């Protein structure tokens, strides 16, 4: 993926932002940790935020369309300074009359005075839209319109700002607007966050947040799922190797928790379920299929749990040899069929 695509891909945008919170060497960073350097650390990823009832009541009376539970893509905070940056990442701007505007109004209210207590002990919260630099101007205009609408309806929006990702020569740059820069105590100058990029290697950093979404490029549609499936595969082997019993049970939930190191708990329920479904469809069912002729009783699937009855050490070794060999397991990175309509949230289209 070239850098221009990278800054417009919602999953990679988010991964870039998480990398920016991770401590790294100044002289050889992977993604320049500007947030970490400013003393900000990651607090939440896509955690739904419940707007207070009085706010929802006013919005209903005044017929202001808002989403009831906005979820910032990222919330980073600096506890000693009592500051939090509420980040919404977008691949492009949107208009005040688009469906995304409902979400935009909700974000503005979520950082407003009515919600101040929710961030305690943090006292100073700023909403900052992060998107490609050439989209910032339109986004600014849209947020000004939305903010005005809210004020006219008797609601109290909070402060908002922008930061833009750009591409220059062989690097990806980050340009906070003056408000974001002042809030983070960063220079408002455009700064390199990914450098030394070349045309031959994909610019994407190692994924820190795993999702089972499609990649925006149809030619790489399974890219993110491939990473998730590889991790789940690794987690399953590691669990089996650490446990030499002749019968072994594992749930899709346990593997997803292991794989994401608990991050999954911060995702909307819908996404959690889809991750579990990926485990069942692409891993558990493939294992059952591969072994059904050789040892029909080896694998039992019940709901989202898999039980393996090895019976003998020899069969266990045989199974583990198979599981270690990617050429044999051939776990698919195709999306499992959707079972319920997805509600908008993380990585929603702009």
């Amino acid at each position, binding site marked *: 993926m070239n850098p221009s695509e990278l800054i417009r891909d919602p999953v990679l945008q988010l991964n870039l932002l998480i990398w920016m919170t991770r401590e*790294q060497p100044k002289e050889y960073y992977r993604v320049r940790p500007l947030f970490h350097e400013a003393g900000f650390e990651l*607090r939440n990823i896509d955690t739904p935020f419940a707007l207070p009832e009085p706010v929802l009541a006013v919005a209903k009376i005044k017929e202001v369309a808002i989403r009831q539970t906005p979820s910032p893509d990222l919330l980073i905070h600096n506890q000693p300074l009592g500051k939090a940056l509420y980040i919404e990442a977008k691949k492009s701007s949107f208009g005040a009359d688009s469906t995304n505007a409902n979400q935009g109004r909700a974000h503005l209210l979520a950082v407003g005075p009515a919600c101040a207590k929710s961030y305690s002990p943090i006292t100073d919260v700023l909403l900052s839209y992060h998107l490609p630099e050439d989209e910032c101007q339109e986004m600014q205009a849209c947020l000004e319109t939305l903010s005005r609408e809210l004020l006219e309806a008797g609601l109290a929006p909070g402060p908002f700002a922008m930061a833009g990702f750009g591409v220059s020569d062989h690097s990806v740059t980050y340009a906070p607007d003056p408000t974001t820069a002042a809030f983070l105590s960063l220079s408002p100058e455009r700064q390199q966050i990914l450098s030394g990029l070349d045309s031959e*290697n994909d610019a994407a950093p190692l994924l820190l947040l795993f999702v089972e979404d499609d990649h925006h490029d149809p030619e790489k549609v399974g890219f993110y799922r491939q990473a998730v499936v590889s991790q789940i595969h690794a987690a399953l*082997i590691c669990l089996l190797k650490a446990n030499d019993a002749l019968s072994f049970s594992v749930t899709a939930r346990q593997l997803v928790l292991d794989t994401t190191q608990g991050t999954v*708990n911060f995702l909307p329920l819908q996404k959690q379920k889809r991750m579990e479904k990926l485990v069942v469809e692409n891993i558990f069912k493939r294992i059952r299929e591969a072994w059904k002729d050789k040892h029909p009783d080896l694998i039992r699937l019940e709901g989202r749990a898999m039980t393996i009855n090895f019976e003998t050490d020899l069969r266990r070794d045989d199974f583990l040899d198979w599981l270690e060999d990617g050429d044999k397991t051939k776990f698919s990175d195709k999306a499992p069929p959707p079972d319920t309509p997805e509600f908008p949230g993380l990585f929603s289209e702009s």
Partner: protein
Amino acid sequence: MTPKPPVLPERPKDRFEVYRLFDGISSDGKEGIDLGRTRTPLVKSFLVEHVSSTRGRQTRTPQEIWTRLGGSPHPIDPDFFSIQGTVRDESGDIRQTTVGYLERYDERFFAYYTTEVSQNAKKRVIKWIQKSPDLDSCWFNSDLLQVLWNQDVSKRGDQRFGKLTFKHESIFEMPENAEDSEEETDDDARLEDSDFEEQAGPERRKARFDMSDRIGRIKQSLGKLQNEYSPLCALYSLRFPSRLGRGSHDLYQHGQLTNRSESFEDHRGTAFYLHQVYKKILESTESKAWSDSETSLNASTRPHKGVPLIVRFAEPLSEATFKQWISRAFHKKNVFRLWGEPIWMGPTKVHVYGADRHLWQPLNLEITGEGMVAILPKGTCGNTFHRLVTNIQRYVCPKVDAWVGSTPLTDLMAQATRVEG
């Protein structure tokens, strides 16, 4: 003539009987070294790590581990065990005998003391480790040996004798446009020095260099030489002059310590000191690196922490060398002991969401021609990273810079040696 190991008692009265026996052997050994002919093999220790009980793994006692390995451990006291093994006697017959003693320093670290010939002892320990996914060597990588030299050995007296051995072989180095070599890099074979001479294949960078001199003279020249020739950064073993008397202790990358002093207690003290340094480094690596998330949504929690482990190669790898390395590194018996399916992101970049093939713990890697980024999920042993760095310096690029987050690995190591030294 190969020195013959002495007979070791299986059931000594107490551990001090073993100490006295090894003291005698050490004294004979030192005399032999001085005369240029050793009658019995030198006493040596191997520092071994037992994977801690994180990631749902159960900690096992040495007795449980070595019983499973066929070592028939006999407890001499709660933390000291005799270990049995098969040996071939002079007539060629195979018999079972006491081959050494195991001391548990703590729940995580053991020392195995033996008087077997070095190659046999090394093979035995490697075999144990290969058979036990919860055992690993303690990996004293070149940077750590260099820090131990800077902080400790170089301050033990300019007139004393020191010895540093450097070893590097670019086993993955490929001339541009070369065809893939079928040569495998089995980790057993890699530990044998003879391979350096026996290997077939294309011309590659190989360096083995012993620097044996008075410490003062080594100090004067080492930095300059290392700046001129990077394989001299691939420190493979380091001699520690005894603090108590005459002689020394040779520490090797894979955690072997050979006693060339006249006292076993001095040797054991050195092994224990090195274990403490190593333990401290591992713990600091893990406490900084473990990526973790609280499951609570409480606003005051820190849901995501953990820093990446980063390595920069002083000399970027060519595309051919990079391809050769990646195509071999994930093979079953390769010295890197990595498992996973590399996702190729370009000719000199891969992402791997895989595992440490030896300890079977998850590990995420980005490897490029210029360096490596490792993410250690919570519970993945810091040893994995130290083994990776050790092998990169030995087989890929002799000079590297490594960081845990923004802290240079050498600073972290220096801190550990300053406190304990």
